[in-house]
């Protein structure tokens, strides 16, 4: 499963900046912390439950994998189309 769109990540960054000022780097987050943020973010957009088998969840997992595997978020963002 590919990652979410880059524009969605930008939207997520804007949401994180506004609602989670304590988070300053996504690659510093563990997977569970990242996905916890994602669940909150998607809930704010009207997704009531994010099923772990859903395509959306898997896309975000893939996105997290990219952020976790790059040395910084800039590289991670660049790797997402």
């Amino acid at each position, binding site marked *: 499963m590919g990652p979410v769109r*880059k524009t*969605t990540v930008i939207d997520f960054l804007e949401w994180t900046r506004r609602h989670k000022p304590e988070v*300053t780097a996504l690659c510093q987050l563990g997977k569970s912390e990242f996905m916890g943020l994602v669940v909150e973010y998607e809930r704010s957009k009207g997704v009531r439950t994010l099923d772990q088998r859903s395509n959306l969840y898997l896309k975000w997992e893939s996105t997290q994998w990219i952020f976790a*595997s790059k040395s910084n978020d800039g590289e*991670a963002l*660049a790797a997402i189309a």
Partner: protein
Amino acid sequence: MTKRPDSGPLDARQVEDEDLRRIGARFAEGATPAARGVDALARYISVPNRMLIFYSSEDEAVHSYILRHWAALDRMSGEICDIYPSLMQIEGNEDAYSTIAELSNIPGASDISIRELPVILIWSDHAYAKIPIQCFSTDQIAVRTLFRHVFGALHDIGRGIADGDAQIITEAIRQAQAEVRLQDAPVIYVDRRTDMSTHNTAGPGSVIVSGGTTGDITLRQKWSESDVDMKALAAEFEKLREELRAGGRSPDHDIALGQVAAAEAAAKAGDRSGVMLALKSSGKWVLSTAEKIGVGLAVQAIKAAIGL
């Protein structure tokens, strides 16, 4: 997009370079986002302005300019504004139509109508500016001139844009317009951003800047503040919906029906901004049908929503 192997990540720079080269983009050493080598969120927070360029694959001049001159765009924007391109968008696998719907946290994004494309959206922590650039998308020189003046204005402002910067941005657009001898002036919206918990809504005090004249309140704002009988409006939307239902069964018709139904529900709830949001993408068919059957309140609301 380069396919990722199952075992371990590709180097991001390699992915970026390969993708850009494959689609024919030209860029200078160190100009790709990956080469900045900084934390994306820290960068996002520290750069005072951010820009998204909404366009469809039909906007060839904009499309070509981004492909060929990404490095120049990146240099022009410098440390005052970050541009976020989407490679899938550039490749044509994704277009602005589907992208816009997902951006509920980007101020001004939900206010963009597909009919306005291409559109530049610039936002800071305090305000956003929406600049439809249709009249500049005739050729790449016009597009380049526009970007040069827009980024020049942002450098002149020297911080995140505020709603009081409408005049500077307008002047920049006017200069670009004069330089490439364009007749049509874009209508620019500069609005202070509202803190949206879930969905973005147009905040109070929207300023419309048209042809260099600042200070006019938008039609939408005027309508929202006007003394409209919402009960009568809801009844007119119901009448309009019935008329539209008889007019066709294509997907476009169904979309229009849905928009009018949503406007009707908002009117029944007394939600003026909801009426505007529901109607903002309604087309000429809806307007002409409303005019034909003589539902005056609905006509005024549709005109205000689509900016006529």
